[in-house]
């Protein structure tokens, strides 16, 4: 249960079963439910949470406003088509709110004040003015905040629902209860225009959350990071930006055994703004890093930003993933396997096979590497599909090299004589050979210092034709 100024303000179902109810004093509660967890209400943190929620919800509409009684108002009239209708939109908003670690009741209506009152009553979705009026007519008067001061008088009249209130004479009602009540009623029913104070996204993004406990498991940290990422997604959408470099830091114990915060930089090869993608990247990054000490707080900052590029779609979309999907896949693979394990080919114009076969990380641009291979490969002599890391020395049996079984030559030799300009001359005769199992190999005969009749050449296996 939650206390506010020594009075119970929220109760769990089990505590309610024990007889605790709102407005009780602390002493009474301790008598009834001594084992119950007691928390203090923190209005500052509540406001902060509400602002975080508003920031995260900016990804659905640029028009978000905060209302009293912990309400966030969203003008979604322009977002319905983009997010695939009201049901899909509500589902997405629910997911975002759950990621923030909050729960909410969601109501939609054609007027903001109407929706606000419906939300405080329960999950109600109305899309037309007529149905909204019907719904509102049945709501209790207490939901109208301007009427709370006159509640006793209204109940005394037998006026308990908004519909009954509306039927009272307006002049008398205005004289007794003031203009506010009538104004609010008119706004709720769409008879008067509404004015909102829209939430504006801050110019720079920096968010931080305190963790409830000391946490040293990275998967739990990733769940908390999701709260920050939801806010980041809303902020990026509101400012039409995409992120190029993300910085996550973990704060550790302060005080005597202070440990400096761990910083995790997350550079992206292609700017992104999709929350799910960022979350998977952060999750992989966290799971690969080791924590020096348990973390007590998490922070997130957007370091490098650039304007969001609108996605261009094809008139006839290809099946399967788009180029952006592929980029995201590469980033994800790099995040877990490491940049040097995700490679692209950058063959080099060189006669020596081990030098011609060059691979570099996908994060590297191939265009700036020296001497790329531009020859049409069809003009080259045959090359195997696999190369051995190190040529494997072969022994000879009756003047024939042996690898598992004696090898039989199936091609004329190809002489490669290169490297003399680097001081490492090599002279090799490459052959295609076949073994008894009909597998093809690429073998070579090495001459140490040029071809001489008195020298016995050494044979090596260098590759396999798959």
């Amino acid at each position, binding site marked *: 249960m939650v206390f506010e100024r020594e009075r119970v303000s929220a109760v769990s179902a089990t505590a309610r079963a024990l007889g605790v109810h709102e407005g009780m004093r602390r002493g009474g509660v301790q008598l009834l439910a001594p084992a119950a967890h007691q928390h203090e209400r923190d209005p500052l943190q509540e406001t902060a949470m509400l602002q975080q929620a508003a920031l995260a919800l900016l990804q659905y509409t640029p028009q978000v406003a905060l209302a009293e009684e912990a309400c966030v108002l969203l003008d979604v009239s322009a977002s319905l088509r983009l997010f695939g209708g009201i049901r899909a939109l509500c589902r997405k908003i629910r997911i975002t709110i759950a990621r923030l670690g909050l729960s909410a009741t969601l109501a939609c209506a054609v007027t903001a004040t109407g929706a606000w009152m419906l939300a405080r009553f329960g999950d109600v979705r109305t899309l037309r003015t007529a149905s909204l009026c019907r719904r509102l007519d049945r709501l209790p008067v207490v939901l109208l905040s301007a009427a709370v001061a006159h509640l006793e008088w209204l109940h005394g009249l037998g006026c308990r629902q908004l519909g009954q209130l509306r039927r009272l004479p307006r002049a008398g009602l205005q004289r007794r209860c003031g203009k506010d009540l009538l104004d609010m009623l008119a706004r709720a029913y769409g008879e008067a225009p509404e004015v909102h104070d829209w939430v504006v996204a801050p110019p720079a993004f920096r968010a931080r959350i305190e963790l409830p406990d000391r946490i040293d498991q990275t998967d739990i940290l990733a769940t908390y990071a999701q709260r920050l990422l939801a806010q980041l997604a809303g902020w990026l959408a509101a400012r039409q930006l995409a992120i190029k470099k993300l910085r996550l830091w973990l704060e550790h114990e302060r005080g005597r055994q202070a440990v400096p915060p761990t910083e995790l930089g997350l550079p992206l090869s292609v700017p992104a703004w999709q929350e799910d993608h960022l979350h998977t990247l952060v999750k992989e990054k966290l799971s690969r890093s080791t924590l020096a000490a348990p973390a007590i707080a998490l922070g997130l900052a957007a370091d490098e930003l650039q304007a969001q590029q609108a996605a261009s779609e094809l008139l006839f979309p*290809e*099946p*399967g*993933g*788009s*180029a952006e*999907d*592929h*980029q*995201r*896949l*590469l980033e*994800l*693979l790099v995040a*877990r*396997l490491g940049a040097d*394990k*995700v*490679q*692209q*080919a*950058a*063959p080099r114009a060189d006669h020596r*096979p081990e030098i*011609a*076969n*060059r*691979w570099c990380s*996908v994060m590297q641009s*191939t*265009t700036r590497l020296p001497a790329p*291979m531009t020859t*049409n*490969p*069809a003009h*080259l*002599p*045959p*090359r*195997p*599909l*696999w*190369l*051995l*890391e190190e040529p494997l020395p072969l022994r000879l049996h009756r003047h024939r090299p042996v690898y598992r079984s004696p090898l039989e030559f*199936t*091609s*004329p030799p*190809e002489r490669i004589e290169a490297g003399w300009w680097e001081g490492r001359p090599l002279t090799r005769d490459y052959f*295609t050979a*076949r073994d008894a*199992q*009909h*597998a*093809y*190999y690429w073998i070579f005969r090495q001459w140490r210092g040029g071809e001489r009749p008195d020298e016995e050449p050494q044979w090596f296996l260098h*590759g*396999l*034709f*798959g």
Partner: protein
Amino acid sequence: MLTPSSPLRTPETIHPSLWLASQLARGGARGVSSGFEALDAELPERGWPPGVLIELLLPQDGIGELRLLRPLLAQEPGQGAARSPQRLARAERIALLQAPYQVNAPGWAHMGVAAARLLHLQADHPADAVWAAEQVLRADSCQALLMWQTRQRKGDHELLRRLHIAAQSGHTLFFMFRPLACAREASPAPLRLTLHAARDGLDIGFLKRRGPLREQTLFLPLSPSPNLQRHAPVDRRTPALATAGSLSSELAG
């Protein structure tokens, strides 16, 4: 009572996913032609099925398993060679995972697979490899994923099932090369072929397929074998023919 005209005798007319045990599955025209008529005729769906786990079981690497896939993977020479990897279409990318040896990019280019089309992934742990395969299959942004498993391990069945489920989420052609010893174990892959090297070709055994049992192997001639490949063309320039009267008058005079 089954009359000759009963639809139960010809279940394939009821729904394309139905077939008799004596028939090959013809679920639709989804199969990608392997490039070999004889093999296509023996494969369900008349070709390599995309979006499923295809197991190829080999006694050793390098017996010609990649030449078998050559018609599928190769492109016209010169096409796609000059483009950067970012600008490739989906149908052109090929991911190689846990390759048994160093991948020789010039060799692949020689086979008809431009170097820019290749994506080479190497994972330190088997668990990472399976994870990477799942990500590639889920993203569905590659034409084919070739994965090698060099050693048989306990719990393979569970991993294969995970991979097969991941494969079903897209249209990537997913080939997994495994040692022949795995043929004894059950596998969730709907298509399992054993490959044995033969003179100038491959003997293909059908261990499991959506269709009737086939005991005898299918011999597939794989030409050109490396020894039959054309030799390097002699790049000799034809000398310019000197035609009569082409000599300038100054020199002549």
